[in-house]
C-alpha cells in the first residue's frame, strides 16, 4: 500500500496557476506581465474544474498553465524589464535629489517607446519562438495586418507616437507592394466596417480589414497601451515577414523610401523597389503610351466607334498578344499542372481534382488604363488595381502624387472610375472639341471611347475573376448588390446569388402561396414548377442528412403539439394513404352525385390540372415529411438522454439557421414580387 497522496500536489491543482500567483512568481509588475503575455502568446486557460484548480475557495479567477509561466521565467525580456525598473528607480531617485544631470544621463539609457517609437530591446527571438516556420507566421498574420493598417490610419497622440504610426504605414505599404509584385491578392470586399482583403501567400489565406480613410473615433474605454504592446510585436513580425517575402521574389528589403514624394501624398509611389540580383523579378514599370503624343481626332473617332461596338467583349481592346502568349504558355509547360482525367467508360468512380481558376489574377486589368476621379478612394483602388495587373493608373491631382497621369483627357485612358451622380443634361457634341485641348474636363462630361464605371465594378470583377458588364455599374445606375466573396456556399443556407426557386424547399413556395390564397394559377407557373421539383430531386440524391433534419423540424413545427419525448409514433403505412385516396374518391363520388342531382356536368373540377398537381405535390410533401418525422422519432427514442440533448441542441441551431434563411427567402420573394429588385450580376 502506497502512501496517501496529499491533496493539491498533482493534477489540475498543479497544472494551473492563478494570475496573481504567476505575477508573484515572475516578480514583475502587472503591466509587464501583460506585455510578456502578449508577446509570448500566453493566454489564460479554462480548467476543467475550477474548484480543483484553485487552491482557495474563492470565486472565479484567471488561470494560466503552470508550465507556461515556468517557461516565462527563462525569458530574456524579463531581465530587460527588471533592468528598466531599476533604471526608473535610479532616475526618480536622482530627480528626488535634484540631480538633474544625473537623471538626464540615466534617462538616456531608459526605454521610452512612447517618445521614440522604439524600445531598447528587440522581439526577434520571440518571433522566432512563436513562429518556428515562416508559414506559421503567415498563418497568424490576420490580426497583425488588421492592427497595423488601423494604426497606419490613426492620428498621433501622446499614447500613439507619430513615429509608430509612420512605421506602421511604411510596413503596410511595403506589404502591399509585395502583394502587387507577387499578384497574391485574391479577394476584396467593401463592407460597412472597412475594406476586407484576402491574399493567398504560400497557400495561406490571409484576411485583413482596412478601415476607410476617416478620422477614427477614439473612445475613452480603449487602452492604447495594450494596443501599443500588440503593435510593437506586430511591427517586428511584419518587418521580418516583409523581408522574407521581398527576398523570396528577388527584391531588396527595405525598399527605397522617398520622403519627399511621400510628403506629396504618393503613398505606394513613394517606394522604389529594386532587385537584389538573385531572383528574377518583374518590376512594375511605367508603360508609356505612344498614342499620348498626338491625339489624332480621326483615331479618336475610330476608337470611339470600336468602343461603342465592343460593349460586352471589352477584353478585346488589346488582347491579341496575350492570346498568343497564353497559347505559347500552354505548349511550354505541360509538366506543372495536373492533367484532367476524364472517365472514358461509364461505371468508374469519379475522383475529385483540384481545379484551377481560369484567369490569372495578374492579367485581369493588365491591358487597361484607369483614371480615378477625385471623389473615389484612391488608396484602395490603386492598390487593388495594381494588385490585379493594372500598370497605368491616373488620378486627379487632388488625390496626390504618383499617378500615371493627372490629365483626365489622356487618350490612353480606357476606364474611368466615377462615383458621382450624373448631371442630367449631358451634351455629347459640345465636348468633342474640348477633350482634345482642355486639360481639365467639365465635371460630368464624358470622353467618348472610355468606359465609365463605379468603384464597385472593380471589386466585383476582382471577386468573380472576370470583368463584369460595365453597363450595370455605369455612373448613377442602381448597383447590383455587392456580395461577400468569403461566404462559403453551404447547402441549406440562403445564397443571394442563386435564383430563388433553386434553393427553397419544395413546399416552401406552396406554403407561401397558400398564404396568398393561390390567386395566381398560370400555365407557366406549372412549367416553372417542374424543373424545380427536378432540382430538388437531384439535391436530395446528393444530400447530406442536414437538410433532412431541417425539413423534419419544419414539418414538426407544422404538426405542432407532438410530444417527442416519451411518445412513439410508429410507422406510417399505406393505410393512411389509402384512406386519403378513399376519402378523395368518396368526395369525388359525392360531388358527382350532387352534380347529377342538380343536373350539371362535373368536368370543371378535372380541367384544373394545376391545382391538382399542386395538391398532389403538397400531399406528397406532407407524406414524406411525416415519414421522415416518424423515422427521426424512432431514432431519437433509442438514444440516451445525454445524446438526445446534444442532438436537440444541434437541431435547434440548425433550425435557427434554417429559419434565418427562410426569412431571407421570404423577404426576397416579396421583393421580387413587388418588382423592385436590383439586377443581380
Amino acid at each position, binding site marked *: 500500500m502506497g502512501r496517501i497522496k496529499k491533496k493539491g500536489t498533482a493534477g489540475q491543482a498543479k497544472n494551473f496557476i492563478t494570475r496573481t500567483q504567476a505575477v508573484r512568481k515572475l516578480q514583475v509588475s502587472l503591466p509587464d506581465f501583460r506585455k510578456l503575455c502578449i508577446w509570448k502568446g500566453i*493566454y489564460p486557460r479554462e480548467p476543467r474544474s475550477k474548484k480543483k484548480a484553485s487552491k482557495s475557495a474563492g470565486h472565479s479567477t484567471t488561470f494560466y498553465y503552470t508550465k507556461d509561466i515556468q517557461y516565462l521565467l527563462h525569458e530574456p525580456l524579463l531581465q530587460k524589464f527588471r533592468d528598466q525598473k531599476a533604471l526608473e528607480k535610479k532616475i526618480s531617485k536622482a530627480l528626488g535629489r535634484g540631480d538633474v544631470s544625473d537623471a538626464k544621463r540615466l534617462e538616456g539609457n531608459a526605454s521610452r517607446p512612447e517618445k521614440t517609437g522604439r524600445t531598447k530591446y528587440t522581439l526577434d527571438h520571440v518571433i522566432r519562438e512563436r513562429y518556428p516556420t515562416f508559414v506559421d507566421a503567415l498563418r497568424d498574420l490576420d490580426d497583425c495586418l488588421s492592427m497595423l493598417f488601423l494604426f497606419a490610419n490613426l492620428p498621433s497622440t501622446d499614447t500613439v507616437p507619430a513615429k509608430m504610426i509612420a512605421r506602421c504605414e511604411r510596413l503596410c505599404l511595403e506589404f502591399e507592394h509585395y502583394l502587387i509584385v507577387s499578384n497574391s491578392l485574391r479577394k476584396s470586399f467593401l463592407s460597412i466596417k472597412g475594406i476586407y482583403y484576402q491574399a493567398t501567400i504560400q497557400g495561406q489565406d490571409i484576411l485583413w480589414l482596412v478601415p476607410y480613410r476617416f478620422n477614427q473615433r477614439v*473612445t475613452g474605454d480603449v487602452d492604447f497601451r495594450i494596443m501599443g504592446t500588440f503593435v510593437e510585436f506586430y511591427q517586428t513580425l511584419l518587418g521580418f515577414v516583409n523581408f522574407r517575402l521581398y527576398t523570396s521574389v528577388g527584391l531588396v528589403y527595405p525598399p527605397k523610401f522617398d520622403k519627399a514624394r511621400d510628403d506629396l501624398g504618393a503613398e505606394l509611389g513613394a517606394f522604389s523597389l529594386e532587385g537584389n540580383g538573385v531572383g528574377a523579378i518583374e518590376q512594375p514599370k511605367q508603360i508609356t503610351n505612344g498614342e499620348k503624343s498626338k491625339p489624332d481626332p480621326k483615331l479618336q473617332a475610330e476608337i470611339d466607334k470600336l468602343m461603342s461596338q465592343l460593349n460586352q467583349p471589352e477584353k478585346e481592346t488589346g488582347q491579341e498578344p496575350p492570346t498568343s502568349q497564353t497559347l505559347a504558355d500552354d505548349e511550354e509547360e505541360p509538366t506543372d499542372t495536373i492533367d484532367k482525367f476524364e472517365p472514358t467508360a461509364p461505371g468508374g468512380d469519379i475522383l475529385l481534382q483540384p481545379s484551377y481558376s481560369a484567369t490569372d489574377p495578374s492579367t485581369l486589368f493588365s491591358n487597361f488604363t484607369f483614371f480615378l476621379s477625385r471623389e473615389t478612394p484612391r488608396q484602395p483602388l490603386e492598390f487593388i488595381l495594381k494588385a490585379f495587373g493594372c500598370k497605368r493608373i491616373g488620378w486627379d491631382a487632388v488625390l496626390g502624387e504618383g499617378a500615371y497621369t493627372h490629365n483626365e483627357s489622356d487618350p490612353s485612358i480606357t476606364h474611368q472610375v466615377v462615383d458621382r451622380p450624373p448631371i442630367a443634361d449631358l451634351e455629347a457634341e459640345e465636348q468633342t472639341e474640348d477633350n482634345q485641348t482642355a486639360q481639365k474636363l467639365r465635371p460630368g462630361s464624358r470622353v467618348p471611347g472610355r468606359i465609365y464605371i463605379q468603384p464597385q465594378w472593380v471589386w466585383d470583377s476582382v471577386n468573380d475573376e472576370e470583368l463584369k458588364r460595365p453597363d450595370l455599374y455605369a455612373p448613377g445606375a442602381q448597383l447590383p*448588390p455587392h456580395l461577400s466573396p468569403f461566404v462559403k456556399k453551404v447547402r441549406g443556407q440562403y445564397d*443571394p446569388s442563386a435564383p430563388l426557386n433553386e434553393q427553397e424547399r419544395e413546399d416552401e413556395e406552396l406554403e407561401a402561396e397558400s398564404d396568398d390564397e393561390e390567386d395566381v394559377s398560370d400555365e407557366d407557373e406549372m412549367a416553372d414548377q417542374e424543373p424545380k421539383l427536378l432540382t430538388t430531386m437531384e439535391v436530395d440524391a446528393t444530400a447530406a442528412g442536414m437538410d433532412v433534419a431541417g425539413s423534419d423540424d419544419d414539418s414538426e413545427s407544422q404538426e405542432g403539439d407532438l410530444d417527442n419525448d416519451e411518445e412513439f409514433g*410508429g*410507422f406510417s403505412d399505406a393505410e393512411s394513404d389509402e384512406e386519403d385516396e378513399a376519402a378523395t374518391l368518396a368526395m369525388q363520388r359525392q360531388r358527382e352525385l350532387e352534380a347529377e342531382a342538380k343536373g350539371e356536368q362535373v368536368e370543371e373540377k378535372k380541367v384544373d390540372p394545376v391545382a391538382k398537381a399542386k395538391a398532389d405535390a403538397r400531399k406528397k410533401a406532407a407524406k414524406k415529411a411525416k415519414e421522415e418525422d416518424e423515422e427521426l422519432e424512432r431514432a431519437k427514442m*433509442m438514444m440516451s438522454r445525454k445524446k438526445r440533448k446534444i442532438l436537440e441542441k444541434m437541431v435547434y441551431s440548425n433550425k435557427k439557421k434554417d429559419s434565418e434563411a427562410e426569412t431571407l427567402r421570404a423577404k426576397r420573394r416579396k421583393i421580387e414580387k413587388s418588382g423592385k429588385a436590383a439586377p443581380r450580376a
Partner: protein
Amino acid sequence: MAPSTVDRRKRKAVSTDDVASSDVESEVEFGDGLLEGILSQSESEDSDEDSNAEEDSDEEEIDLEELEALDSDEIPSEESEDEAEELNGGLVKSNGTKTLPVREQALLAEEDDKPNYTVTTDANGGERYVYEEIDPVYDSDDSDAPITTNTIGNIPLSFYDSYPHIGYDINGKRIMRPAKGEALDALLDSIDIPKGWTGLTDPATGKPLNLSQDELEILRRIQTNEMPEEGYDPYPATVEYFTGIEEIMPLSAAPEPKRRFLPSKHEAKRVMKIVRAIRQGRILPYRPPEERQEEEEETHYDIWQDEQPRPDHIMNIPAPKIAPPGYDLSYNPPPEYLPTKAEKQSWDSADPEDREKEYLPTAYGSLRKVPGYEKFINERFERSLDLYLAPRVRKNRLNIDPASLLPKLPRPEELKPFPTVCSTLFRGHDGRVRSLAIDPSGVWLASGGDDGTVRVWELLTGRQIWSANIGDEEAVNAVRWRPGRDAVILSAAAGEDVYLLVPPVVDPETDAASRELLDRGFGHATNATQALTANGARKEPVAKWARPGSRLEDEGVLIKITLRTTVKVISWHRRGDFFSTVSPTAQKSAVAIHTLSKHLTQIPFRRLPGIAQTVQFHPSRPLFFVATQRTIRSYDLQKQELVKIIQPGARWISSFDIHPGGDNLIVGSYDRRLLWHDLDLSTRPYKTMRFHQKAIRAVKYHKGGFPLFADASDDGSLQIFHGKVVEDMMENATIVPVKVLKGHKVKSALGVMDIDWHPREPWCVSAGADGTCRLWM
C-alpha cells in the same frame, strides 16, 4: 522724476530766492549743526543749544512734508543746516555781547573738568549760576533723520507769499524769507550754471537747491546700481571664529608626515591614464552632445533561415480567426438583408450587449456615401483583449450533421416484416377476453374470457370452430396450448381449476394421440396417490387430477386439475410434459409444477419472497424463472438452487418472456415500463422503454425466427419492437421500435389483455377487453 508742475514751482522758487546762495555756500563749510551738537560744547550757549535741539525736531517734520509734497530727490538735510547756520548767525547778531564769553567757554570746554554752568550776577548783584540747558541727546537715537527747520507743516509755501517770513522754526521764531535777487540775476544764474546747480528749489528754505560734488557722486552711484558709499564692501571676508585666530601652540606636536611633502603617485597615475587616453584619442577634449541615435535603421534579416517545423504543443490552442464578413456586412447588400422597420426598432431598443450583431445592415448605394465605422477601434481593441485575456477552451463544435448522432438503425425495409394492420377480428366473446394462444401449428387460435368459455378459432378466417364453457361463473384466466406437434392439447385455467382439453378440430389420429397422452397418466397418478396416501395418510394432495364430468368430456375437456386457489397463469415446458401454474393469492403453493405424464402436481417453493406473478421455463436449459412483484428469480431445476435474481426495477411485474436464445428476457410491468434484460450483461435492465401511457399487461417474443417482440397495454395499443440479438457476445442487442398497433377499445380502464405470436409468421394476435381478438399481420 518729479512731475512738471512741481518743477515749475521750483523754478519759481529759484527765481524768488537766490540771494543767500553764495552765503549758503560759504556756510556749508562752516559747520555742521549736527556735528556741533554731538562732538563738542564749543558753542554751548544756552539759546544756541536750545535752538539747535529744536531745529532737529523741526527738520524732521519738514522733511516729511517735503517728501510728500514734492517727492523730489533733493536732500533736505543740507538746507536745514543752512537754515540752522542762518539762525545761528541771527542769534549771534542778536546777542553779540555775549559771544565772547561763550567763545571762552567753548575754549575752556576743551578741558574735561569744566563746570556745566556759568556764574553771572543777578539783578541784586548776587552770584547767579546759570546752568546750561541739558541736552537730552534725542537725536542720538535717530541720527540719520533729517533736521526739520520749518514747522509750518504740509502746506504750500505760497500761503506765506504776502509775509516777510516763510514759516516758523521749532522755537516759534519766524524764518525770514531769504532775500530775492533780480530777474536779471536769475537769468544770469541760468546762463552760467553754477556748480551743483539743480534748477530745483528747496521747499523748506525757498532757496535754489544745489548739490555738492559728493552728493552728485552719490546720485551717480545710486543710478548705476553701485553702493552709494564709496569703498563700502558689502561682502567682507568672513573671519572664522576659530580658525581666524592663529593658534600659537599646535594641537599635536607630531611632525608633519612625509606624504605632505611628496607628490601623490596615485594621482600621477590617474593623470597619466587620462593623458594617455587623450594622446591615443580615446578621450576627446570636447564632444558635442549627441542627439539620441535612435534613427538607426533596424536590422532586417531572414529570421526563418534555418526554419524547422515544430509541432505545436499538445495543449496549445491557437487563437480563433475572426469570422469572414457575410453578405449583410456589405455596403450594398442584397435588399433581403436589410432589416425591416420592426427589426431595426428592436435592434435599436436592445442593449448593446444583447444584440445578436453589433451592426445593422445598411445599404449606402454608392461608395462615396459610406461613412467611417464608428466602432472600428473598439472592435480591434476587443479583439486584442480577447487575444491575451480570454481563457481559451477547446470546444468541440457540433458542426456535424445531427443525423450522424442518431444511432445507426436498420432501415425500415430491413426491419420488415412486422405486423402492421389488423387483418382479422375475432368476435364472439361476451366480456373481456382474458387470454389467448395460437397453437403450435399456427392454424388455430384459442381464447378464453370472462364469459367462462374457451373458444378455438380458425386464425386466418376468424371463424369460431369450437367453444366450451368450462368455468361456470369463473372467468377463464389463461389459455395455453401444449407445445409440440404430436398432440393438440389446450390448457385453460378458470378459477381454481386447470382444464386440459383436446378440441375436436384436428384430424382423428392426432385427436386420438392427444387423448391417449392425456389419459396415460391416470394409472400412474392413482398409483402415486395411493403410494402417497400409504406413506403419509394425513397429507392432502396439492391438486386433484380428475375427469371434469361427462358434459365437458363430450365437449373435449378431458382433465380437470383442481388447485387450492385461483390460477392465473399457465406456462408450459418446451417438451410438453410439464407445465406450471401460478396462483398468486396462494401463500405457499403459489407456483405449482404439473407433470402431465404422471398427473402429478408439485410445489417447488415452500416460500417465496413476494407474491408470485408469473413463471417461465427456460427454452433450452433446465432453468425455471419465477417472477414476483419486484424480482425475477431463476432456479436450476436439476441442482435445485437459485441461479440468479434479476432486478428489473419495476414496481410490479406483470409479465415477462424469455428470448428463444435464452440469454435475454423482456419484462412488462404495471408501472408502464418495458424492460429488456441481457442476462449475461447484468441483473439490471439493458434498456428501459416507456412508451405506454398505461400499464403493460403482456409481453411476448416471437418464437419462430423473427427478431420481434410485442407488448400489450391497458391503453389499448400494442407496440411492436424489432429486437435483434446477435450471436456475438460483444455486441448488444439492437432494439428498434417499429410499430404501434391500435384498434382495441379501452373498456373500464383495460385495453389489451394478452398477446401471442404466430409460431412461424410475423403475425400476432391480441386479446382485448372489448371482447374481441385481433390478428395483426
